[in-house]
Structure formats: structure tokens, C-alpha cells
């Protein structure tokens, strides 16, 4: 009976503007439905740096985004490798 982590982040495609801000995101789901949804505005942004003193450092830049269809989603950019992830915060 191994505990399973919940709320694991999911890798998503994100289009960014020249300033590096997310412009449109593709939400997790079946591949054929991953149409990019434009971002209306960035509601909130925060950064988390954890474990920088240890072997597995973690550095994330979180965004809470308001999408064109009215949804509110939380995504983050992994500052180590530049990938984008969706996650409930």
C-alpha cells in the first residue's frame, strides 16, 4: 500500500510573448483537443525556490492565468529547463 502523490504537475505546450509571458496555453487532455487557448491576463505571479541547498533544487515561476474562455488556471515554468507545467495550486 504505497501512497501515491496527488496533484502531480502535467507538462503543457505554452506560447510566450517576447517578454517571456504566457500568451496561449494548451490544457491537458486528449492530444486532438489540445488547442491553444489565449491568455486574457496574468492574475498573479510568484516564484518558489526550494532545496537549493541540497541535491535536488527546485525553481519554479508560477502564473495564475485568466483564459479567453473565462477559466482560471495555474501554470508554472521550470526555471531549470524552461518547460511549462499545469498544476492546481
Amino acid at each position, binding site marked *: 500500500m504505497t*501512497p501515491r*502523490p496527488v*496533484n502531480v*504537475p502535467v507538462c503543457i505546450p505554452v506560447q510566450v510573448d517576447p517578454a517571456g509571458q504566457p500568451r496561449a496555453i494548451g490544457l491537458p487532455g486528449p492530444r486532438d483537443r489540445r488547442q491553444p487557448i489565449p491568455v486574457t491576463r496574468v492574475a498573479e505571479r510568484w516564484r*518558489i525556490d*526550494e532545496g537549493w541547498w541540497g541535491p535536488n533544487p527546485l525553481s519554479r515561476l508560477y502564473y495564475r492565468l485568466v483564459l479567453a474562455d473565462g477559466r482560471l488556471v495555474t501554470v508554472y515554468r521550470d526555471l531549470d529547463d524552461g518547460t511549462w507545467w499545469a498544476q492546481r495550486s
Partner: protein
Amino acid sequence: MVARCASIGCLVVPRFPLACELADRPELWGRPVTVAHPDAPVVWSASPAAVAEGVIEGQRLSEAMGRCPPLVVLDARPARYEARDAAILDALERVVPGVEPAGLGTAYVELASVARCYRSPEGLHAALLGCAPSELRPRLGVGPTKFVAGLAALQAAVQGQPRDAAPNVRVVDQAEVAAFVTPVPVTALPVEAEMIRRLRLVGITTVGQLAAMPRHALVAQFGPQGKRLMALLDGAAEPVRPRPREERVRERLAFPEPLTSRESVLAAARQVLRRVLRHPRQRGRVARQLVVRAETEQGKRWESNVTLRHARCDHEGLWVTLAPALERASLPGPVSELSIELRGLRPSRGWQGELLPTRNASTERRGGRQEGMRQLQARYGRSLVGRMVPVEPWSRIPERRWALVELE
């Protein structure tokens, strides 16, 4: 005769906390000693030698030590004082039927009903004084009212009459009340300290001066307290109100090594509960209330009073009620003694169970859920139902906060 005129007795152990400490440490007799208050850094009880050096009750300890450098300051042990006081009250109840507790080390007793049981008043006085250990140096005052008896007890050692059997007994008959009360200082009155301070401010230092004051002025100045004082000065008799007699069963366990962990306290409590339920006086009876007390090495006490929904005497039922109180308790330190007392004992009249088991909604829900899980497991080969458990709920990383555990 005692019974005719002076029918109320007052047994007093002056400066009770200090008397208890000095009884345990007789080498401190005659030295400036004080007992610190358990809740504040102030003097609770001071010896005559300390008072002579300017130490007074309620004074800050730092100031007291400044005034009297050789002052010995002792930590208060309220649990010990309460136990000694309870033992005195129990002993008094074996001598006289009506005993009214009036604070630590003070009790009023009704003597009229027992005076004939003794050959002489001196025999009765000796029996009453014998209720308190002699090392506490108790005093007995006997008078027609509680007020006079209380004052007589405080004055006993000072003005012991030659005809008294012991110098620590003072008997005041009705005829000599006025002469006795007049020179008594107002500080001996059973009123608030603020009232005494105000009386002294206007130059009234003795009860005689106070008695000469117009009654309406006293009431106008001090309100209801003045009215009560006026009634006392006029000789109004307040009856002795005996404490309610309630049968209790108590068991305790002392530990040579104080218990530090909650698990060991819980285990010890289980053992004490088992012992108290095996007590001969408990057999065939049910209890309405449980009192659990824990005492530390320093004499500090924790107490919890648990009232049961149904009077009962079964170990498991009582433990279910008692255990949460102990688990939540913030104990004042390592526990050196644990006691459990059963109160409200009455004969057991049996317990009317249910003829038909009731259909419990939550039990039904649980049964349905288990059946659903069983079917899921049969179909998919593994449990698909999980339970969320907190891992690091405070973590800033969302996926580290909770985990899912399969529900068996």
C-alpha cells in the same frame, strides 16, 4: 457550658501554606520565610519573622527580598495544601456532623449538637484541635456566632484565657462578646482588603471604633458589604452551612520516577481506573462523575472533572470518556502522582438494553461502501478507492501536500 452560649467553633491554621511548609521543614521555624504565590511572583504567606522585617502578603517577591535579605522563599505546592485541608475537614466530620469549609485552613463547626457527647468543653476542644496535625499549630475559637468564633480563633494564641484547656483555644461567651470584640483590629475582619484600607484611611483601626459609627454611614460608605458588616457587629448569627456529604471513592498511584510521556500517563490512568473500580465500596454501584488529578513533583496540580451521560461503572465505558481528557491535557510537568475519584455513587439498577437492534444509518452506509469496494476489486483486480492523507500540508510545493492511500 459550651452548648448554651458559645455554640459555634472555628478551627484555624493561620498562614496555612506556610504552616504546611514549616511542618515539612521544622528547621525553618523562627526564620524569615515566605511562600511564593503559585500564579504570580508575589508573597502568598509570610512568617512572623518576615513580617517583622516589613514583608507583607501580596508584596512583590523582589521587594520582599530587598527588605529582608535573609528571607527564605519557598515554592507553593497547592496540591499538598489542598490535600492537607481535605484531611482536616474529613477528620472534623468524624467529630461533628456539620462542618463548613471557609478557605484553606479554616472551618466552622456546629457544636451544640455534640457538646453533650463530651464530659467537658475541654474534651470537645481537644477533639477538634486533634483533627489538625499539631505541627500545623491549629487554633480554635468558640463563640455564639461565626464572626466571633473566627475572631476568637485568630486571637487564641494572643489572648488565651487561663481557664482554657490549651492556650490555643479561645472561648468567648455571649456576655463577653462586646468586651472581646472592641479592641480587635479591623484587619481581622472578614471583609475585602480595600474596605480595610479605606477604614484605616479615616482613622478607624479597631472594631470598637467601627461599632461606634452610625450604621447608616457605614452602609452609605460601603454598600452591601457595609450592611453585612453592620449585621455582624450587631450580633446577627449566620448559620453554619455544612458541606454537602457525598460519597466518593478514590484511588491514587504515586510514581518513584515521575512520568514524562503522555503514553505512560495514559497507561497509569488505566491502571488507577481499574483499581478504583475494584474498590470494595464501589461494588454494585455506578458513578455519575469522574475526577482525574495529576500532581507534579513541585506540588502543581492538574485536574479534570468529567460528567458522564449515563451513570456507569464499566471500565471500557469510563475509559472512553476519560481518555480524551487526558490526551488533551496540558500537564504542568512530569507527573509524580495520579488519582481518580468516582463521585455521585448510587446503586446500580441495571441497564435497559435494546430488545431489537436499531438500524444505524452510518453502519448501513459503511456496509454499502464496503460491498461496492469489494465488487470493484473483483472486477479490476485492485482497489480503486483511496483516502487522502496529509503529508506536508504546509509545503509550498502543491504535489507534496497530500497523498492518496488505497482504501482496503
